[in-house]
């Protein structure tokens, strides 16, 4: 019964969007983290989705990989910070908080879409089970 498959598909979509929300939360939490060198500084993380298709060309989605943003880590002059280097600079995270907010809204909307799909399928299945009553 294909309608049961819809639960797996929408479930995989919800799972993938949850990973996206998690990376966004981690990025936003670390927006003000500083470090001594650019290598130690926090790098924004983003998931890349990949589809999992079966022979009928339908299927869910999975998180293919999580990449780290290679945007430049900005320097800030803070000579009193214990983490500052010899010249008195600390390296900030390369998180773009506006981008993260947009990502968060997009992820939550996509999650809601999958929830709606699941609810509708559940309703249809319940009605199918009640056939002939």
């Amino acid at each position, binding site marked *: 019964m*294909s*309608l049961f498959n819809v639960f797996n598909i929408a479930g995989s*979509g919800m799972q993938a969007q949850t990973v996206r929300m998690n990376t966004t939360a981690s990025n936003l939490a670390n927006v003000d983290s500083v470090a001594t060198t650019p290598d130690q500084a926090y790098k924004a993380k983003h998931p890349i989705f990949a589809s999992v298709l079966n022979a009928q060309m*339908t299927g869910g989605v999975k998180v293919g990989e999580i990449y780290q943003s290679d945007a430049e880590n900005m320097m800030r002059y803070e000579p009193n910070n214990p983490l500052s280097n010899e010249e008195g600079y600390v390296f900030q995270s390369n998180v773009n908080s506006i981008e993260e907010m947009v990502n968060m809204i997009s992820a939550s*909307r996509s999650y809601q879409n*999958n929830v709606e*799909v699941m609810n509708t399928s559940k309703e249809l299945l319940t009605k199918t089970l009640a056939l002939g009553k």
Partner: protein
Amino acid sequence: MAISFDKAFGIQEQALDLRSKRSEMIASNLANADTPNYKARDFDFKTALSQAQGVQQISTAKVDQTNVKHLSLDAGRSPSVYETLYRNPISPSLDGNTVETHVEQANFAENSIQYQATLNFISHRIMGLMSAIRGE
């Protein structure tokens, strides 16, 4: 007139199956709304239904098999004979994804309403059969 339970639901049985297949396809489009390079898919319900009917008509016909190596008509029978098509996006995105969430949502809603309509047809058919059996 004899009541045949095999033929009682007629085309509605296949229609219900295809409706649930279509909802699966649209659900996978919606789940992959943020997947790079994913192409939205769908199938034409009308063609799929007439193909499914053609399959059924063939299967009711009988062919003699005079040799064991002869293929039966059921050999090539598959429940999913429809052709999967790709949706033409109105505004394709830069990452190669052609899913347009609002279009898919509209199609999903349309498909679920039609699924319920088919369910109604079947349930009325069952009610008709029941009253015929009871003879009230």
